[in-house]
């Protein structure tokens, strides 16, 4: 690892030199299209641009993608490689917004000055202010005489901790007389209402083989979508989740081993207070609501707190702590992937192709830790790291904690997991962020012996 000439993790080799693109393009890399369109805007957007004149990465992520190209509404603009006609559209949309983008740049200058004036050093200015600046540009045009006052208001707004505001509303609600007793009655009733049926699970699990196969061609994808729709409609995922409370032996995995609960059988969660363990399905109902509020920061309106609490009681009682069938089925697919992941094990081979693909990436990522002298031969290089390295060995647990948190968010906001390719991307993306989190902890354990304690914090941040 010291001098890595024979790094086994490397497969793609490339040669040296320059290439002159002579052929007529039929497709173009998305980011190259955006870069070119950006340069076409000309002067006036320097603060949103990098040293080479292209847009900053955050300009793309926080302004162009969500607000100018509006990828949610126009998913066709989001492919990494764009067909040429789509590339031209993207180009035109960006250039067509040149006035708003110039005004955005001016607002960013104004907000940055305000940031200095108010001595704010928290948060990434680009990340936080770019969307605000674009909004100001659209609603007010370029900064006018009142710019300074407008900027200060906008800054106070951004930094005023909306989660605290929402948290306060929640605190007031649960402090009101009768709130907790009513919720407790509901919790008791809902928990008893959930009973497993008698379906056999074999068909469902063998269906997952199709879901977790190679990505395949168009026909394979269509077939996979049909299987997924059938699995979602199947009541097996409900029954498996319900059995974990009564007959855990009838569930193919141990909830404790996969880290969803700290006790078996799964207990009814508390309404409030310190829960028995720190696993996702141990958490008290009110804490789950609090997590929802924290994640709701990017949303325009605050959810209705009483409604959210009542819903969360039912959700906490639902099998897997999730209401929608597609969420439950996705979590099971995630469990099947998770038990195959072992980032530190070189010889490990996974049963499902999708899991094997994720495992291969985890291995490469773990290799970087070796190359950086953060790990030695798959073990801690410093005794301080023991705990985090142990966590990495049971990767299924942080992986499933994070997957559960994502599904919980989708369940709350009624976003769907009906599209199988989206589900596969989710299973993959969760592995990426869980791995990054674990690796950053391993690195941090080495770097700052006397620095701030990051461990607990990293554990609780389940994006």
């Amino acid at each position: 690892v010291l001098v890595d000439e024979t790094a086994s993790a490397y497969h793609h080799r490339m040669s040296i030199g320059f290439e002159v693109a002579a052929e007529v393009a039929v497709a173009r890399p998305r980011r190259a299209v955006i870069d070119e369109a950006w340069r076409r805007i000309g002067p006036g957007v320097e603060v949103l641009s990098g040293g080479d004149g292209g847009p900053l990465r955050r300009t793309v992520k926080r302004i162009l993608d969500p607000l100018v190209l509006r990828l949610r509404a126009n998913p066709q603009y989001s492919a990494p490689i764009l067909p040429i006609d789509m590339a031209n559209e993207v180009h035109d949309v960006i250039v067509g917004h040149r006035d708003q983008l110039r005004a955005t740049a001016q607002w960013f200058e104004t907000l940055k000055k305000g940031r200095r004036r108010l001595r704010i050093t928290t948060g990434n200015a680009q990340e936080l202010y770019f969307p605000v600046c674009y909004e100001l540009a659209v609603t007010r045009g370029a900064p006018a005489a009142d710019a300074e006052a407008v900027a200060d208001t906008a800054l106070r707004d951004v930094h005023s901790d909306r989660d605290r505001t929402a948290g306060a509303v929640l605190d007031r609600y649960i402090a009101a007389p009768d709130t907790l007793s009513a919720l407790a009655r509901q919790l008791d009733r809902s928990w008893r209402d959930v009973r497993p049926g008698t379906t056999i699970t074999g068909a469902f699990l063998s269906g997952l083989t199709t879901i977790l196969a190679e990505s395949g061609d168009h026909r394979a994808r269509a077939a996979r979508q049909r299987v997924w729709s059938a699995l979602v409609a199947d009541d097996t995922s409900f029954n498996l989740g319900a059995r974990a409370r009564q007959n855990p032996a009838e569930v193919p995995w141990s909830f404790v081993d996969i880290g969803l609960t700290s006790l078996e059988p799964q207990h009814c969660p508390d309404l409030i207070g310190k829960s028995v363990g720190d696993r996702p399905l141990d958490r008290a109902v009110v804490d789950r609501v609090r997590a929802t509020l924290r994640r709701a920061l990017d949303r325009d309106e605050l959810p209705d707190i009483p409604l959210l609490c009542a819903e969360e009681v039912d959700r906490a009682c639902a099998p897997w702590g999730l209401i929608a069938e597609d969420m439950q089925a996705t979590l099971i697919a995630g469990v099947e992937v998770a038990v195959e992941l072992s980032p530190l094990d070189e010889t490990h081979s996974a049963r499902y192709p999708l899991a094997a693909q994720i495992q291969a990436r985890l291995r490469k990522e773990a290799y970087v830790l070796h190359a950086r002298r953060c790990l030695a031969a798959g073990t801690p290089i410093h005794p301080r790291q023991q705990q985090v390295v142990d966590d990495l060995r049971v990767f299924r647990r942080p992986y499933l904690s994070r997957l559960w948190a994502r599904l919980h968010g989708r369940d709350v906001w009624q976003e769907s997991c009906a599209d199988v390719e989206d589900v596969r991307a989710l299973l993959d993306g969760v592995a990426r962020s869980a791995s990054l989190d674990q690796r950053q902890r391993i690195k941090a354990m080495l770097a700052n012996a006397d620095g701030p304690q990051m461990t607990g914090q990293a554990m609780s941040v389940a994006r």
Partner: protein
Amino acid sequence: MVLEVSGAVMSWTIDDQGAPRIDFTDPSRADWLWRVVGESGHVKVATATDTPPGPSQTIDLDGIDVAVDAVAVLRRLALGHWLRAWWPASVLDGIEPLDTALLDAEIAVLTATAQDFFGDDTLDSDVAELVSPHAATLSYHVRSGDPRVIELVRRCVELIDEIGVDHSVYEEDWFDLSELITDAAALDTPVAARQGDYALAAGNGAVGPTGAIATGVGSIAWGGVPAGIFDAAEATLEWSVRADADGGVVVATTVMPGADPSGIAVFVDAGSFTGSATLGPDGRTTVDLGDVNGVRVTDSGAWAHDWSGTSVTVGVPVDETPAIRDRVRSFARSRLTEPGPDAFLAEILAAEADY
């Protein structure tokens, strides 16, 4: 040396100026690829990796050329991260340590320059985490009045201004540094120059003065211990079997000034006797040996034992040859003797201190 960019890991051989190997972890996230291989190259790679037949396939990408200039800054970043981990600082060999704060500051500034290559999701993206703890040390360096240091720190302050500090405990330090760097007068009153010399912390030679049954020396494999703790020279650990230590083996390592080796494992293999222990804060420990049945070696057993094949491992056992370490030392020496265009300021200052 490696660099983790969005969707890929790039790697270079440390003392070779060639093009990187690019290993994709997720080609669809490698939205920077056209900057390196051109637009048509990017499209080709995307097509080839669109439907992967298996997790470890090698794709022959003949006809795609890497633009070395485009990756020069990435190579330099990979080098910076490598220096943090592997720079063979040694009192015994006379290889100056690199200043961590200045090195991290320069890596942070470089990472910001190359931000097109980093999403929020790579191990090497987080510059706030990298540089936040260093404000106090950087203030100290700024007072030295070295214009190169001031320029670097100024850029770093601007960067932090934009990205925010990683943790609120560092906020005050950054306010102070920010004010210091904008206050030209304060910079005109240099304090004492950078400390160029330091004393050996734990000595060798203190191991077995009298009554040693057997003694020996050994080397520490760098890959098995954390960076910055032990002197990176060869033969820096001494062991001795002492009659007055109940057959225990006293192990002493050479620790870098200010470093804390506590808790690092030591394993002694003396053929039929083995034992393990952990180092104390002074880099020393006594290892009790026993046979396969766990029976402790006796005084007479120790006298009778043939200690000639004894080996001592500090840290995790890893496969690393002295030749590799030598190659890295000569690489480091050549960088100190003649800092190249890719030299980091921390290296240049180390070279000057050396002189």
